[in-house]
């Protein structure tokens, strides 16, 4: 072909554009991930940075001008159901997952789509709580997504084509991967969900280039392994059903992304409930490492320490909350801290180097325990049969991301207040792929004899009302757990929280409001009624000098920025 002058110049222009674009869309090397929290214009991992503070360094939106926020664009998903994803934003391109396991790349400034990757699910896959996926990880120019059929897929961020696809676990046994993976150095780390199906949970690392498994840490130790004796033998002649091999179906799911401390080379993961969830009598012992945080060597997966929030749980108090890391001053000394608002209703401060328990304090009404011993073991106070336990089954908080602001020193918790459940258990024998909950619970309704209210999923009418539970954003001192302010909401909240360096806090709730609060005082700065519950965590990013904030409400991703 003979190239004319005009086509040559066109090609040169395209080449130049490609060079500029590729410069703008630089690869996300691991050093960028280490410094992700300081790269404020992007959102490079689920919680914004390895310390999982869900805190943005951007300052264009302030308490003074937040009232000028307006909708810039929306993107509508096609598949109904609660949408729990957190997008990534890399140099002007947004990557997000949508149900069941699609990945969408779109222009972060306009919302226009570049490509969609669709994962075909194994028809045998089962998950307890809907087709949830909470997001992606990136390394280089490859995206990583866990799937409902327990695969880990690597996807080319430029083309949306799969690079490799590795089976993490057997999906027909109830295993799934629902959280956003965590990339550490050259590995992609994921855990498995399925705590309602009698899985044996684990966290595993995969080589980012090949997809080959590098290490695996079982969250349920086998007999003879450290912690294995926390699955005690059944008492002889037990009057109640007891499973002598309970550990094999012990649960310990991992369904929210962990954190990483590069200096300590430790990766931290919250572990879910024991299996069966509620019939605790059939699994004697503390049931490690359920309802715990585990600190693992990022290269080997070896356990460095653990802390168990709820030993021998019978309330489904998963400890899958995002481990929030903070370097703080505590009792006059610098402390590498971990702050944690647990589903069991307590705030915790731990030393993340050693796992030492430093502070435990309820942030909502708690009556399943009344005090801690010096090592942080709770003194459990089980309620009589038929009596309510606070917090209820969904917890004082749950998987919704909290936020820590190094600027205010406050830790922000999405909380359910005044919420209780009457717990009960029924014996359940393990069958592969069958529900292994063993539950006989009722929502506590303080109106004796009134009909039961709907479960946790409901429509736009708040028929739970103040009689069952209310929601709140709680701001607590990260060193003591002492409440500094509270933003009360009439309905409960499943929304994560974002704070910014300009002291603006963004969060939503079941009511469908997306709100900006003053992070120092909790006062309302701005709100938008988005029409459906907000069930994910907001993020912030910047493109062409403009700061954006995201909220997902129902099937809509809504992106806000200041009015020009």
């Amino acid at each position, binding site marked *: 072909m003979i190239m004319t002058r005009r086509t040559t110049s066109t090609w040169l222009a395209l080449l130049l554009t490609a060079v500029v674009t590729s410069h703008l869309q630089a690869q996300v090397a691991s050093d960028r991930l280490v410094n992700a929290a300081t790269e404020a214009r992007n959102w490079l991992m689920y919680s914004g940075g390895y310390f999982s503070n869900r805190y943005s360094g951007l300052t264009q939106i302030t308490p003074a001008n937040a009232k000028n926020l307006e909708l810039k664009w929306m993107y509508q998903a096609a598949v109904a159901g609660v949408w729990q994803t957190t997008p990534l934003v890399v140099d002007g391109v947004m990557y997000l997952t949508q149900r069941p396991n699609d990945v969408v790349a779109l222009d972060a400034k306009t919302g226009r789509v570049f490509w969609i990757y669709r994962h075909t699910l194994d028809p045998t896959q089962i998950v307890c709580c809907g087709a949830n996926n909470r997001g992606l990880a990136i390394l280089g120019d490859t995206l990583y997504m866990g799937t409902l059929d327990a695969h880990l897929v690597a996807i080319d961020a430029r083309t949306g084509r799969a690079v490799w696809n590795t089976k993490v676990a057997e999906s027909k046994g109830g295993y799934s991967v629902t959280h956003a993976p965590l990339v550490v150095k050259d590995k992609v780390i994921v855990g498995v969900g399925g705590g309602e199906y009698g899985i044996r949970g684990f966290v595993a690392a995969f080589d980012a280039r090949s997809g080959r498994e590098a290490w695996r840490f079982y969250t349920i130790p086998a007999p003879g392994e450290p912690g294995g004796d926390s699955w005690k033998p059944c008492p002889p002649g037990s009057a109640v059903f007891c499973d002598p091999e309970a550990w094999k179906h012990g649960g310990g799911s991992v369904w929210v992304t962990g954190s990483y401390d590069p200096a300590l080379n430790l990766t931290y993961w919250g572990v879910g409930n024991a299996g069966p969830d509620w019939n605790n009598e059939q699994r004697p012992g503390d049931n490690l490492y359920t309802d715990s945080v585990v600190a693992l060597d990022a290269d080997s997966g070896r356990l460095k320490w653990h802390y168990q929030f709820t030993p021998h749980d019978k309330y489904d108090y998963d400890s899958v909350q995002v481990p929030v890391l903070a370097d703080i001053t505590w009792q006059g000394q610098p402390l590498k801290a971990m702050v944690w608002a647990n589903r069991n209703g307590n705030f915790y401060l731990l030393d993340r180097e050693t796992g030492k328990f430093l502070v435990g304090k309820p942030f909502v009404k708690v009556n399943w325990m009344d005090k801690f011993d010096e090592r942080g073991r709770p003194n459990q106070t089980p309620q009589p049969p038929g009596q309510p336990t606070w917090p209820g089954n969904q917890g004082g908080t749950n998987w919704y991301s909290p936020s820590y602001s190094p600027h205010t020193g406050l830790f922000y918790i999405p909380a359910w207040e005044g919420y209780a459940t009457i717990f009960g258990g029924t014996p359940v024998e393990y069958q592969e792929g069958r529900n292994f909950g063993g539950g006989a619970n009722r929502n506590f309704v303080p109106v004796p004899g009134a009909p*039961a209210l709907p479960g946790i999923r409901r429509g736009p009418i708040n028929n739970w009302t103040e009689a069952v539970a209310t929601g709140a954003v709680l701001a607590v001192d990260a060193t003591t757990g002492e409440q500094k302010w509270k933003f009360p909401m009439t309905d409960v909240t499943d929304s994560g929280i974002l704070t910014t360096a300009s002291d603006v806090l963004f969060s939503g709730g079941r009511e469908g409001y997306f709100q900006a609060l003053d992070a120092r005082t909790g006062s309302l700065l701005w709100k938008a009624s988005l029409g459906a519950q907000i069930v994910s965590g907001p993020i912030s990013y910047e493109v062409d000098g403009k700061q954006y904030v995201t909220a997902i409400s129902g099937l809509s991703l809504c992106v806000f920025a200041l009015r020009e």
Partner: protein
Amino acid sequence: MRAQLLFVAVLGLGTARPEAVAAQNPLAQNPAPGNPAAALPAVFAPADIAYGARLYDAQCTTCHGANGDGVGGVDLRSGKFRNGGTDQDLVRVITNGIPGTGMQAFKLDSSEIAGIIGFLRNMNAFDRGSVKLGDAGRGRTTFEGKGSCTRCHRIGAQGSRVAPDLSDIGATRSAGSLLRSMTEPTSQMMPINRPVRAVTRDGKIINGRRLNEDTYTVQLLDDQEKLVSLTKADLREYAILTVSPMPSYKDRLTESELADVVAYLLSLKGR
């Protein structure tokens, strides 16, 4: 025709539970919408059991007999059941049937389920003479006449909308709950229905029944039967009352009139 077969799958061994009247309800963690088990009461009231006895007599005795032992090897009074002994297991058997047996699937609403389960749990202890369900026809007369219930409640196209519409109350509330609704109305008032009293900044007083509420607004049906949405920030006073405005009918109606009204309300299944 053997269409009315019931409970063929249950196996009779042993005796009824001594704590039968206080049977606990093992509710599902998150019952699916429309799941009849969702409305099972924690403790079965005598009126539920009486309602269940009436349903049992109509639908189950053909096969199971009046005493629950009409199917060989099955004794419903024993409290032991081959296909699982929890209330949920029983609901499953009744609503799904048992393939390959004479036990067919029964389509029952939650009030009926509560009645049947309540009766099954209490077949031995229940004295049919002790609790009367009453007559629905007489109940309607009392409801519309002496009780003046339509001054606040609506059924179909009749009555006021100020209090909750009762057109399908017999499909959603158990018999025991309905009886208590009349004798102790506050105890059975769903929190969403609580009365709202609001005063606007310009002094206008608004009373109504709450339909929905969020952090910033409340939606209600006011005492003029108008749909009203209020922004809380615009109000001088705002209160959610926890006492039902409905009077107790404990002394206004006789025991037998109350039983008649319960029977009438149970017959209201909506469209």
